[in-house]
């Protein structure tokens, strides 16, 4: 995936100002940033959900905005802050996604069963997705993104609201996926997860890319959290305020 000078403006606020980023094939890329840094906006523009005011996005060599069909065919997305078709049950939702991607029914059935089983969502569960817990919703969203075996996965906050056991399982799935030649880019603000998983990281703040490169190059000999706090320019220690607490 490569982004070239993406810009997005909401009303008068500049949400993302000129982000250029190259995600090498086969990398496990972590996109870090404080709340409101523009992570979701950037990823939405990269996958063709939000039209950028300027700049280009290429997925596996195809221009997302010029040749969307070819670019999207090899892409799996887990958007954040976007609803699923939540009046379907988990199994129905997976079947829906599989058929939308033009897969044949037998393959969809087999993969859907496996995914529901591995993610512990229950193969024959008749609960509608709208009644799922937040963590289950993340998991079914991830299953939908994985179903058609894409070459590139774009995941927005995949570990948010997921319990530790499921998180470990998702980490395992993603690591195997990357080992098998896939590429993952995901956003997060949990340093530990990023440090444990990623080969590359990028730090975004106020719509500008502050740092990017391999994990080791970015953090040097310090912890990733220290680097992050310094780059973002925030303070962690509180002074005399909140003395009443």
């Amino acid at each position: 995936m490569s982004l070239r000078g993406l810009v997005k403006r909401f009303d008068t606020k500049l949400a993302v100002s000129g982000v250029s980023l190259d995600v090498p094939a086969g990398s496990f890329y972590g996109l870090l940033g404080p709340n409101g840094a523009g992570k979701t906006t950037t990823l939405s523009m990269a996958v063709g959900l939000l039209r950028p005011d300027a700049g280009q996005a290429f997925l596996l060599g195809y221009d997302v905005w010029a040749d969307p069909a070819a670019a999207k065919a090899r892409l799996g997305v887990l958007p954040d802050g976007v609803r699923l078709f939540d009046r379907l049950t988990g199994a129905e939702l997976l079947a829906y996604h599989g058929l939308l991607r033009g897969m044949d029914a037998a393959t969809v059935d087999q993969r859907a069963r496996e995914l529901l089983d591995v993610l512990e969502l229950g193969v024959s569960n008749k609960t509608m997705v709208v009644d799922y817990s937040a963590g289950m919703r993340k998991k079914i969203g991830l299953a939908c993104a994985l179903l058609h075996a894409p070459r590139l996965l774009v995941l927005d906050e995949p570990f948010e609201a997921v319990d530790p056991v499921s998180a470990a399982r998702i980490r395992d799935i993603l690591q195997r996926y990357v080992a098998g030649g896939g590429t993952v880019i995901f956003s997060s603000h949990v340093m530990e997860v990023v440090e444990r998983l990623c080969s590359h990281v990028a730090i975004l703040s106020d719509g500008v890319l502050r740092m990017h490169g391999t994990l080791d190059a970015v953090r040097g000999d310090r912890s990733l959290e220290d680097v992050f706090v310094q780059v973002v320019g925030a303070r962690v220690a509180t002074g005399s305020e909140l003395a009443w607490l």
Partner: protein
Amino acid sequence: MALTAAPSGSSLTFVRLKLRLIANGLRGRPGRVALFLTGLLLSGIFAVAGYAIFAVPGVLGDDQAAATLLPLGGAALVLGWVVLPLVFFGVDESLDPARFALFPLRRRALITGLFAAALVGLPTLATLVATAGTVSTAAQLGGTAAALTQLAGIVVGLLLCVAVSRAVTSAFATGLRSRRSRDLAVILLAVTAALLGPLQLAVLAGLERADWAAFGTVADVAGWTPLGAPYSVGLDVAAGRAWAVPLKLLIVVAALVGLLWWWSATLERAMLGAAAGGRGGAATDTRSPVGRLLAGRLPATRFGALVAREVRYWMRETRRRASLITFTVVGLFLPVSISMSGGSPGPMALFVGALAAVALANQFGYEGSAYAANMTAGVPGRTEIHSRAAAHALFTVPLLVIVAVVVALVSGRPEAIAAQFGGLVAAYGVGLGVVLPVSVVAAYALPETTSPFAVSSGGGVAKGLLTLGAMVATVVVSAPLQVVGFFLGDVWLWLGLPVGIAYGCAAYLIGSGIAGDRLDRRMPEVLAAVTPGR
């Protein structure tokens, strides 16, 4: 926020919060401002017209007319406050009670605060101005004392209007939230809507006979119910029955307290959230995922999946189901009532067909940002539009057949079934042709609540305008067919079906083609438009 900081003036805080929400909703959004101004204009027209009507008996100095009009008109107004939010406008739930669940507010403070905030709005202002006409009448007939009493009456009456509308919508919404009573509530709603028609016919029939004595009796009775009491106190003073005033005010205040208590009881349940549990792992289904989605009947293709998902949504989502039910009730009731009163059922085919299609006018708004899934899967615009129309037609076409059969039988012309159906299909096709491009260009977000009545500020106006516009356009476009049918006479009985279907299909193909191409170019814009809170 100063909510907890000012416990004494907390009602005022709620009002300020509501005003701030309205102002923030308008800031930087020219479309919203335009809608707000339209709402302002319509409210103004309503207020002035209402004032004029209520003031007429006073100007004429007609005691009899005043004694009839004031209690009955007032009662109609209160009933309007009950029915209209349910059926047409929805309620402005910008102050969602659930948001206050965590604040340390006592129930009484919360209710008075929410009630005070509910009083802020164009409808209350318009109602107050309109009912002020009764004060003018009371002043003309009974002098200052009567006017002052009437003034107190309309203020209490306004409180009653707001309380009754909040209590009823809240009770319905609570009913709709829990799975078990949801269907019951939807049916109740449909029946309420259906009752409006006969009521109207009864009133019209009464007016035609001009049975004023009967009306007088009804008005006297209504004057002693909470519905009409607030609007007749001034007349009692004028007629020398001052003893009735405290009694009537007592009746109204008792009703008001009762309604507020009912409201607070349902609010309590709403704040605790929907009762979700009860059927977790028990229900299982062993069919394959694809088999479950397609129910074994649709092709295992992209189109089949899209149609299957839409069909599920029409059945499972409250808003869509409510619109299907409303259409069924209106679609059957209207033509039948016209046929029975001896009118020609031809033009109403236009109306029914158009009404069916209007359900798709904001089709992308129904599921909101979930549309992102279809975008990332790269569904072409035309496939998207065709699948949505096909799923809707699966429900609508059988209904149109029933309407055609029923209308032809009721009007005593069974030979006209085919032509009648042709006319309906033509109107439905034209309606789709008009509505589908609108749904792409003018999509708007619906709030993410389970209450089918909730609209965001200004949403009621948008919904009404969009519906009206699509209806008018449909009637205009399909008028030529009606004219041809009228002049051909009996030949039309044979030609009506094929020509109607061809006309409808042609209109649909043109409209869906335009809509699909526009959608291909506007997908991100449509997604942004239907995502709430942007």
